[in-house]
């Protein structure tokens, strides 16, 4: 597997966010753009992930979340996340990230307090899951840049689609 220096990734990501803030100025807009960028990455990332991880299937949402946390994060960010806090019907959980290399060297000033700096990661997870027919919502519930003790992504699985025949029958 090819690897690059993590500092290059952190600094490049930082400059992307910096540029988005300069261009858009509104923090909600920046969050939305980061999510869209992450989504576009996720729909392509899924093929690489499935090819290298050789996963044949995940039985339920629990296995899916475990695969994202252990295999996915390890493959792309060389860090593992832990899955915590499953709710009663196993549709929501949290992914706790101990060290998030995207936020190395980062401090958020007062003016950017509404910025969700790592929103790109949420977009990636959302995009990748959509390509395997799982629709999910993803956001940061705890963020060290805002003063919490750790980073936690809240993952909520909404539904699972099945394969439909795409052509109209009378064509």
């Amino acid at each position, binding site marked *: 597997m090819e690897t690059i220096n993590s500092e290059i990734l952190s600094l490049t990501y930082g400059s992307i966010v910096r540029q988005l803030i300069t261009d858009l100025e509104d923090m909600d807009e920046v969050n939305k753009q980061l999510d869209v960028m992450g989504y576009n990455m996720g729909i392509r990332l899924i093929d*690489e992930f*499935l090819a290298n991880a050789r996963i044949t*299937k995940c039985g339920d949402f629990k296995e899916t979340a475990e695969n994202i946390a252990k295999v996915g994060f390890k493959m792309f960010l060389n860090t593992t996340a832990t899955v915590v806090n499953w709710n009663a019907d196993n549709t929501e959980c949290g992914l706790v990230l101990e060290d998030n290399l995207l936020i190395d060297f980062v401090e958020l000033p007062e003016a950017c307090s509404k910025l969700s700096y790592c929103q790109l990661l949420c977009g990636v997870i959302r995009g990748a899951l959509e390509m395997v027919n799982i629709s999910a919502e993803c956001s940061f519930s705890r963020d060290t840049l805002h003063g919490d003790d750790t980073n936690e992504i809240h993952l909520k699985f909404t539904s*699972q689609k099945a394969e439909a*025949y795409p052509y109209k029958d009378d064509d």
Partner: protein
Amino acid sequence: MVVHNIYVFDREGVCLYYHEWLRPKPVRDGAGTQSDDQKMMFGLFFSLKTFAAAMDPKSKSNAQLGAPLRIGENCSFYSFRASNYKLHFYETLSGLKIVLNTDENANDLRELMHYIYASIYVEYVTKNPLNEPGKPFNYDTFTSALNKHLRLIGQL
């Protein structure tokens, strides 16, 4: 082993890529036009998957013939052999389907299909920044990597 042609479909049924090496019978005598040929191919394995899952004597969950399937959940077929050709099918969890037609003496080519997906498709198509998902593609890098690999295994 002789390789006849290869199709790559996405989950919407769009034929993203088609390449043929040796096809003595022209498409006109078979399906008619190239797009009809591709649609028939897609319809074929879509129905075969449903059929294989419904007639499965071993699995516990019961898929009915009419109901849409989730990928990865039921058993799926991976090849069928006719008297003068063999069709190999590979489907990923993301809905991408690769179909390869070879002569009838081919063995189990699942490893090769996985290699085509993981080391050729992902490398030259998914990682290509100009590639738009859902649109047919025709990259020289992909075709030449495919030819190179097939030649390496002796056009198997």
